[in-house]
């Protein structure tokens, strides 16, 4: 009786490796949580800079999904399997947020498709890309079309622009009747500060009343919105605090060190740097991309700090008004090296292994 082979009553799944119980976590969940978390920032951008941001995000997402689907089907893989992890959507959303609100449609198209096709899939797809695809796309258009990329609107709010949704649509997709962007565009506070040679900070802000407040009215609120979402994501354990903390601390320290008060050669206050430009978007949504960042917690701290220092350096002395994209890409390159030197100390070992494995 004991010899009865009762195989038939057990399903044909066969032997599987443990664990048999699995957690509820999924890539899709992680990605969609991050996408959700961009909503406050997106709302703030829409409120202060008009419908452009919203249209941009929608257009970029569409292009990103399209690129993903196209490449995946070229690679003869299941399109639904890949699209369902929401990673392409996230790249699209982030690029949409990062690009100027009235960036013309072809600009977004170039940025997104470069990021997705060359930045992600040519390296092997999700998980294989050494660079942050969104930032790669951003930098490509930043270098290629500097004029379009530095054209932001004054943060007047929706009413201030007197700009309807359809206006915004036609600005981005100029089908016949073009609205001149130049007429309503202006530089960002970071740009203004960089170009400033003669005015003290106070005079500068007086000359540009829309930038009142700590870092320019709209910019500050947008950054605060991203900060709040970022804290929420850390609380939900989507990523750890190390990367953002490293980056923000580094920016704050650099800005404090090189802050020469109110004079015309001033680089702006630490608070100004923390709350303007893409600081918070970068700290919580860009450098926390796990694929292209450092691996261990210590590594992430170093990675974040590196980005922070680089952002400040580019802002203060570089040729571009904001440097989050460049800083991220530069640190992406450094990530493998950081990984080599930041292995955590394993249980039962005196110290962590460093560098490359030793050949004997």
């Amino acid at each position: 009786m004991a010899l009865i082979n009762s195989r038939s009553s057990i399903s044909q799944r066969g032997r599987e490796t443990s664990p048999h119980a699995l957690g509820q976590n999924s890539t899709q969940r992680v990605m969609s949580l991050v996408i959700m978390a961009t909503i406050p920032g997106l709302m703030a951008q829409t409120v202060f800079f008009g419908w452009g941001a919203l249209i941009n995000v929608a257009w970029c997402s569409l292009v990103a999904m399209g690129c993903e689907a196209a490449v995946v089907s070229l690679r003869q893989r299941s399109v639904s399997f890949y699209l369902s992890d929401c990673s392409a959507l996230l790249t699209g959303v982030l690029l949409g947020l990062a690009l100027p609100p009235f960036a013309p449609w072809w600009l977004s198209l170039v940025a997104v498709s470069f990021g997705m096709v060359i930045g992600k899939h040519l390296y092997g797809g999700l998980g294989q890309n050494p660079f942050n695809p969104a930032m790669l796309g951003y930098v490509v258009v930043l270098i290629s079309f500097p004029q379009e990329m530095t054209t932001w609107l004054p943060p007047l709010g929706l009413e201030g622009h007197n700009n309807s949704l359809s206006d915004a649509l036609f600005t981005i997709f100029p089908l016949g009747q073009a609205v001149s962007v130049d007429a309503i565009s202006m530089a960002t506070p970071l740009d203004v500060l960089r170009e400033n040679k003669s005015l003290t900070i106070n005079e500068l802000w007086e000359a540009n009343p829309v930038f009142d407040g700590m870092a320019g009215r709209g910019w500050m609120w947008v950054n605060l919105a991203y900060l709040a979402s970022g804290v929420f994501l850390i609380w939900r354990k989507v990523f750890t605090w190390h990367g953002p903390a490293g980056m923000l601390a580094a920016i704050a320290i650099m800005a404090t060190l090189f802050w020469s008060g109110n004079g015309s050669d001033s680089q702006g206050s630490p608070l100004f740097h923390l709350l303007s430009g893409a600081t918070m978007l970068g700290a919580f949504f860009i450098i926390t991309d796990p694929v292209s960042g450092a691996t261990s917690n210590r590594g992430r701290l170093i990675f974040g700090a590196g980005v922070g220092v680089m952002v400040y350096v580019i802002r203060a002395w570089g040729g571009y008004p904001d440097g989050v994209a460049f800083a991220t890409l530069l640190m992406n390159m450094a990530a493998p090296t950081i990984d080599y030197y930041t292995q955590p100390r394993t249980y039962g070992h005196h110290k962590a292994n460093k560098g490359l494995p030793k050949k004997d």
Partner: protein
Amino acid sequence: MDIVLYAIGALLALALIFGAILGFAAIRFKVEGNPIVDQINEILPQTQCGQCGYPGCRPYAEAIANGDAINKCPPGGQATINTLADLLDMEPEPLDAEHGQESVTKVAFIREAECIGCTKCIQACPVDAILGAAKQMHTVISDECTGCDLCVEPCPVDCIEMRPVDITVRTWSWALPQPNHGKAGLIATDLRGQTV
């Protein structure tokens, strides 16, 4: 004129100093490395089967060191080729089919009832893994057998066969997971014949 002399003098002095430092470093920090032949021999599987065309692993190691191809060792298989390529900083090549196919580990087995005790296999065995004497039945010490195949040919009564080494409970281990039915593989070629 003086300037030229000064310059030459300075350069000479520098050359001497750096030369001295380099010479010192060469002696002080000399790395006692294995000769390359030993390192290659270390990687080869030591079956001494001669499938590479050399009479043993060491001769083949010497031949590799002198520039022979690294893909002539079927018992070592692709793993050995890769390690060799790594050591010699070459591109790994597929196994040269002319020298044989990579197969599972085997050991020789003598069907003892048929053995006539001719000692031919004992003479052929490169690692002395066959036990026996003239007119006595022979047997293989399977722990020592390298699976080189060399004893099979000389047997006049064909009583030696190569048996694959069975995996037991104690030697079993999990295999790497299949790369996901081709869904998340890196490139189209890792579909391995499957379509999505």
